[in-house]
């Protein structure tokens, strides 16, 4: 359906506007209107997902399609990979928003929160749909600027400091990206991703292009918090309100970081061996460093934030392995397997990390602390939080039959088939470290002896929070079904095909 595509951006933008205007006149307007909008978006995303075929669907904004065979307008492109991302964004977005209905009562200025939430969704939907480099930059800024405001939403000392740090690094990253886009325009005189691909064909080793690629890796690497660029993430993600942490860790770093990197490097550049190795090394570094740093944290949300770095490392490493294999052109099968593992882990991480941050929010809501040493013995007092967080912990540390086990298994098998024995070993070791720090979380939060008498009076969180957590916990379990080839072919195959047949994207759009 062609006409639905611009609505993914327009609907949340209009909703943000209406929440600010009508919310002032009608009391509690934002509390039922924003979940409704997000629910519609989710339904639209699932509908598009069921309709999506092999070929990308193109929407030209304002009807400016081509002039003499050259695309002049702004294109919105919906293909297998972007529709998968749309589903994740709107699913986690809806669940986090439903959770906020109870959680955000402790804050003032709730209306601003819901408006900013709509903007962050609009920005991310725009990023994954955009087929135009500059348009992509604009939507990215829409979502990250609202995330700066949301990180500082608590306006306490730590929140403001984290937000300032996040902003300085975020602006730096945006400038690097804008510079790279300017240089691409200089080289090709076009901004359309597909058109750039056809014009750049064959220039893989050109030093000017390598410079652009390095700029893009550092810019989007900063947004995705890959290891040398990760300094802002633990502060920003642990200081934000918990549903926002779930959004930031669960989808924002994927939509504006990993997704764009992968889209540009698979569908726009003809990547060289060196760039592929850089990806693999950066991924491995963040996988190991994130896990080791997470191990020594006592602040629950900081632990989860470092664990995000580590899990994103898995995804980047798997994509890097696929790129190495594809650029040498030897082992196509292992490359397909690595991309499958990476996309699968991307989906899984959104679900279980979202759930873990919601659990952390539930604990913070009742205990008003994030320090693991001040918790204990909560498994009887908060049965839903306890059981869902146990499921999420098992799934992130790769225990069968949860989804995390299968995606990690696929990545490790791909590494062995592609003869990356060191990476396979590291992936297993990091998985064990992950299990270690999640056992620490479980033991200190839920199974230790209660430290104080007061803890005995803790009750379970309200309905909207526990319901959101239950939905994600069920998804953790249900997504493990994707390990079966028959189901995986239906769900993940379109996304993988888009990445593996890298020319198809540009050929369909430019029509050359």
């Amino acid at each position: 359906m062609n006409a639905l595509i611009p609505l993914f951006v327009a609907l949340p933008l209009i909703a943000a506007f209406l929440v600010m205007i009508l919310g002032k006149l009608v009391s509690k307007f934002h509390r039922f209107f924003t979940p409704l909008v997000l629910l519609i978006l989710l339904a639209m995303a699932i509908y598009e997902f069921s309709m999506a075929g092999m070929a990308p669907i193109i929407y030209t904004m304002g009807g400016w399609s081509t002039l003499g065979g050259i695309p002049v307008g702004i294109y919105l492109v919906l293909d297998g990979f972007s529709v998968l991302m749309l589903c994740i964004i709107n699913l986690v977005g809806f669940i986090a928003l439903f959770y906020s209905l109870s959680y955000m009562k402790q804050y003032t200025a709730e209306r601003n929160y819901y408006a900013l939430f709509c903007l962050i969704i609009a920005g991310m939907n725009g990023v994954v749909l955009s087929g135009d480099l500059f348009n992509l930059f604009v939507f990215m800024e829409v979502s990250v600027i609202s995330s700066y405001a949301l990180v500082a939403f608590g306006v306490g000392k730590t929140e403001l400091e984290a937000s300032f740090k996040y902003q300085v690094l975020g602006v730096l990253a945006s400038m690097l990206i804008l510079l790279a886009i300017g240089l691409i325009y200089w080289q090709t005189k076009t901004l359309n991703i597909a058109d750039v691909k056809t014009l750049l064909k064959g220039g893989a080793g050109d030093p000017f292009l390598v410079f652009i690629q390095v700029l893009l890796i550092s810019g989007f690497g900063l947004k995705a918090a890959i290891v040398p660029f990760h300094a802002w993430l633990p502060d920003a993600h642990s200081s934000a309100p918990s549903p926002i942490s779930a959004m930031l860790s669960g989808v924002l770093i994927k939509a504006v970081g990993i997704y764009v990197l992968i889209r540009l490097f698979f569908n726009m550049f003809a990547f060289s061996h060196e760039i592929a190795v850089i990806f693999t090394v950066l991924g491995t570094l963040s996988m190991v460093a994130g896990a080791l740093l997470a191990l020594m944290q006592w602040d629950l949300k900081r632990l989860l934030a470092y664990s995000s770095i580590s899990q994103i490392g898995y995804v980047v490493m798997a994509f890097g392995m696929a790129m190495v294999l594809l650029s040498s052109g030897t082992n196509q099968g292992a490359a397909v397997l690595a991309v499958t593992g990476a996309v699968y882990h991307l989906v899984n991480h959104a679900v279980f990390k979202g759930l873990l941050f919601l659990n952390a929010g539930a604990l913070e809501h009742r205990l008003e602390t994030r320090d693991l040493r001040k918790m204990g013995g909560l498994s009887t007092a908060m049965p839903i939080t306890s059981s869902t967080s146990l499921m999420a912990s098992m799934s992130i540390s790769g225990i069968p039959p949860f989804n995390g086990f299968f995606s990690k298994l696929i990545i490790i098998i791909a590494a062995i088939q592609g003869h990356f024995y060191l990476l396979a070993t590291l992936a297993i070791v990091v998985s064990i470290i992950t299990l270690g720090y999640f056992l620490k979380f479980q033991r200190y939060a839920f199974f230790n002896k209660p430290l104080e008498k007061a803890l005995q009076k803790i009750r379970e969180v309200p309905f909207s929070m526990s319901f959101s957590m239950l939905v994600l916990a069920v998804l953790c379990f249900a997504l493990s079904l994707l390990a079966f080839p028959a189901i995986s072919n239906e769900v993940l195959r379109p996304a993988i095909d888009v990445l593996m047949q890298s020319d198809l994207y540009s050929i369909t759009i430019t029509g050359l």
Partner: protein
Amino acid sequence: MTAYILTFILFLVGLYGVITRRNLIKIAISLSIMEFSIFLLLVLIGFIDGGSAPIVDPEKAGTLYVDPLPQAMVLTAIVIGLATTAMLMAIAIRLYRKYKTFDIREIKNLRG
């Protein structure tokens, strides 16, 4: 060529400021300097020596125009830059109210 080198020097001035300054406001100003050096580069990319403003006049066929697209991009990017600077300033003012200082050496609750 001189213009490109000057733009690059401006970029480095901004980067130097972001790295070395200790004052929140000065960091924000340095970021703005960086932003504007990149805007200048974008305008330079679209500039053609001797070209006129890109308003097409059918009576004067064959006139040389400068590239309008980077100009449109810069206008959009300036608006985004404004939003970012406003955000940075808002947070800096809030931080000043909490800590009574702009010095980043005294604002360090977050570590690890």
